[in-house]
């Protein structure tokens, strides 16, 4: 565990990519293979089980820290991370431990079979033999919120340097469902083929955005200059659903979301068409709510994502279909190196043969002869219930991760509204102890009605100014939330708007974020609830 704790510390101590890769390589070359796999699992979002209830951990930590509970909570607001708070508040350890990461994780997993008393004893003893940094990563393992400022790409790069295996191949091999207990380092680095693990998805290819802001839009001419001849490109609508990879192999089907969550059971409507596909087929597309041949707004789908049980009512109210736009594997063969046009042909063939064309849809190509023409067509995005258009180079291979060059997303401007900040709350992580999470309101007569929360969109410098304002203009405190003097006006952007019975304002926004701080607007000039409700008809259910 000392090596793992040091890894964490060293990664924190540099902002430079090359240094981080070096630190990762040092770790890989100095720990046993089982530790490597555990580290890899943790760094790629495969959390260990959480055998001990986190409320109990918290209570025992308070006991070990010997401070009142309220002070623990206040400390947590200052630190913004539970594992870190606990490690900072406990007294320095007197002993030390030489157990490896693998051994610690085995111990953690073994707690599942223990009684509460035994767990407490084990935890108190464990804390007492770990230094502050070890305790921090140990608490991270226990509470399972493992977010490290290191991308999968960096981990893969380090591993690629060490093993001599190419990064895309490694990225593929660490996809899908595996746990360090059943996937060894030897298996990872040996030559292998797709059939080794029939559920394994391919790494997603992600589009790069054509950068625009509400003040500065790209003209068709600029896009043309950057991308070249229009006839080298295919265009599709950019659908607002859940990106998914759908696999049929060895008589079994798997649906993977982009977060590498296996979501097969969440979408029973898709099972018949997937089962009917030939073995050795992998499709890439978007899952959307779909009714009467039309996509439904994202929030309809959202209501069923979180549900454990899909009741009949949900399946009736929010049925799904998929709009497929790529084929990555055909007849058991990885076809990612074929061109976009070739893959499209195969996809069209598959879709032609399906008996489930209502559910297995294909992303139709937008016909255009010039960038000007496409720019005009793009204006219809909202009517198409799309977020804009996608541009794909006809000669593009299917690549790994977000790459500039061959896939671009050209989104339409977000909807926006000017709103007044009325509540503020402290953030987490690198925004700990700063007021960064705000609630915004619009006018309903002479009252301000809250309608959205937003966390992102301001620069660090702006956040500091808002934080300064909040601390000096607090009207009331409710736990961590402060009511602030209504004064600051911000332009809030969002992708869609829907009726909501759960919110006081009667509306819910999709992906609200701060577009800019309107220093120029007094609060009286913020928008009204009525003006927001006017958007309902045009842009959602």
């Amino acid at each position, binding site marked *: 565990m000392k090596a793992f704790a040091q890894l964490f510390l060293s990664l924190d*101590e540099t902002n*430079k990519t090359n240094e981080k890769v070096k630190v990762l390589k040092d770790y890989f070359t100095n720990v046993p293979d089982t530790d490597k796999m555990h580290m890899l699992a943790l760094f790629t979002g495969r959390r260990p089980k959480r055998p001990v209830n986190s409320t109990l951990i918290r209570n025992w930590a308070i006991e070990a820290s010997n*401070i009142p509970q309220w*002070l623990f909570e206040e*400390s947590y607001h200052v*630190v913004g991370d539970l594992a870190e708070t606990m490690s*900072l*508040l406990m007294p320095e350890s007197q002993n030390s431990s030489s157990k490896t990461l693998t051994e610690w994780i085995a111990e953690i997993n073994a707690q599942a079979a223990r009684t509460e008393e035994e767990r407490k004893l084990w935890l108190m003893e464990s804390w007492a033999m770990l230094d502050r940094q070890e305790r921090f990563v140990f608490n991270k393992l226990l509470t399972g919120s493992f977010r490290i400022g290191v991308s999968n790409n960096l981990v893969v790069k380090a591993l690629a340097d060490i093993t001599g295996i190419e990064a895309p191949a490694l990225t593929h091999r660490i996809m899908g469902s595996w746990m360090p207990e059943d996937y060894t380092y030897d298996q990872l680095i040996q030559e292998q083929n797709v059939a080794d693990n029939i559920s394994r998805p391919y790494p997603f290819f992600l589009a790069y955005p054509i950068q625009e802001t509400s003040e500065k839009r790209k003209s068709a001419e600029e896009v043309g200059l950057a991308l070249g001849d229009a006839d080298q490109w295919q265009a599709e609508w950019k659908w607002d659903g859940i990106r998914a990879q759908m696999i049929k192999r060895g008589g079994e089907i798997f649906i993977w979301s982009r977060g590498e969550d296996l979501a097969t059971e969440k979408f029973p409507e898709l099972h018949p068409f997937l089962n009917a596909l030939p073995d050795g087929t992998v499709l890439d597309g978007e899952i959307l709510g779909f009714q009467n041949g039309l996509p439904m707004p994202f929030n309809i789908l959202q209501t069923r994502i979180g549900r454990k049980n899909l009741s009949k009512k949900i399946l009736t109210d929010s049925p799904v279909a998929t709009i497929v736009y790529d084929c990555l594997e055909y007849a058991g063969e990885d076809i990612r190196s074929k061109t976009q046009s070739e893959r499209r042909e195969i996809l069209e063939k598959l879709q032609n043969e399906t008996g489930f064309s209502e559910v297995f849809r294909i992303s139709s190509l937008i016909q255009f002869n010039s960038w000007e023409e496409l720019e005009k067509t793009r204006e219809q995005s909202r009517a198409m219930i799309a977020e804009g258009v996608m541009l794909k180079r006809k000669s593009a291979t299917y690549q790994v991760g977000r790459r500039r060059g061959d896939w671009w997303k050209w989104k339409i401007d977000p909807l926006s509204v000017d709103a007044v900040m009325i509540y503020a709350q402290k953030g987490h992580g*690198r925004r700990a102890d700063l007021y960064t999470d705000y609630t915004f309101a619009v006018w309903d007569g002479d009252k301000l009605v809250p309608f959205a929360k937003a966390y992102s969109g301001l620069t660090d410098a702006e956040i500091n*100014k808002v934080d300064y304002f909040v601390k000096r203009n607090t009207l009331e405190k409710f736990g961590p939330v402060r009511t602030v003097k209504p004064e600051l006006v911000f332009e809030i952007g969002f992708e869609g708007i829907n009726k909501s019975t759960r919110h006081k304002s009667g509306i819910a926004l999709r992906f609200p974020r701060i577009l800019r701080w309107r220093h120029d607007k007094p609060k009286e000039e913020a928008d009204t609830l009525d003006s927001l409700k006017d958007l309902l008809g045009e842009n959602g259910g």
Partner: protein
Amino acid sequence: MAKPLLEFTDRGIYCAQGKFYIDPWKPVDDAVITHAHADHAYVGHKNYLAHHLSKEVLYYRLGEINLRTIEYGETVTKNGVQISMYPAGHVIGSAQIRVEYKGVVWVVSGDYKTDDDGISTPFEPVKCHHFISECTFGMPVYSWKPQSEIFTDVNNWWRSNVENGVATVIVGYSLGKAQRILQNLDLDIGKVYTHGVIENTNEALRRNGVILNPTERITSESSKEEVRKGIIIAPPSSVGTPWMRKFGPYSFGYCSGWMAIRGAKRRRAADRGFIMSDHADWNGLVSAIDATSCECVYLTHGYTASFTRYLNEIGFNAREVHTLYGGEEEDARVTEGEEVKETAPSGDVVKEDAP
């Protein structure tokens, strides 16, 4: 009921009987100054009273002021009120102000730390009835390591930078942190270079008779190659400026108590964060307050609300008061973009610790 000896007014802490203010933030006739940081020593008062070791820095920062200085333990009497100074251990020349009238004793801590930094006269607890204390780091998550451990880390980092051929820039406030760093560097590794703002402060302290390790002011003539073999001490305001970028490639270390929290450290985007503060940590605050045996403690700046509540729960009589102190360490939470003021390489602008 008689008026308390010290009151909190919108100009600062006021003694009506002695007709003087302590660390006032608006112009007054008589000001007693705890230390020379900008959020405590404002310009515009008629008369200043401060510690000897603050003298030259005050002149340098505030210009021609009417200043009288005294030693620790020395007493000045004003209209029957006895004023004396005791070491606060915060920076060189920082003092707690002890005020006594008719047997009632008040102490104003200013800013303080309880650990000996080897350069500021160490903090001395002073018995009193009423104690006015800061609590910048008044949360139990703040707990400082011994200074020797921190400087082992600093020196090791410097050494490895020299080996890797990158410049070393260490950032700390120009009065206090800068000298503390300077006196604890391992000079066998290399030479110490200073930003103009810091060198100006060093020179003021040297005029005051303080003996500091040798330093070299960075000028437009300084050789980049030579500087790279040494270490640069720079103020927070220089981070990210063209002045600092011209030494690239460099590794930049930030020295502050806020570095104790991972989120704050990440926000700073420093290559290295060294947890080093000139303020007392949680245990330091509680023990310092306890050592005064005071009847009542007033918390002026920092995590005042929760610290006050905690002190009351463990049996102190604590109150939260509102002041304008706290510019100096609080600044450290601010990310650079905003805070950066263009500072001439000569460093004539002294702004980095304005509130």
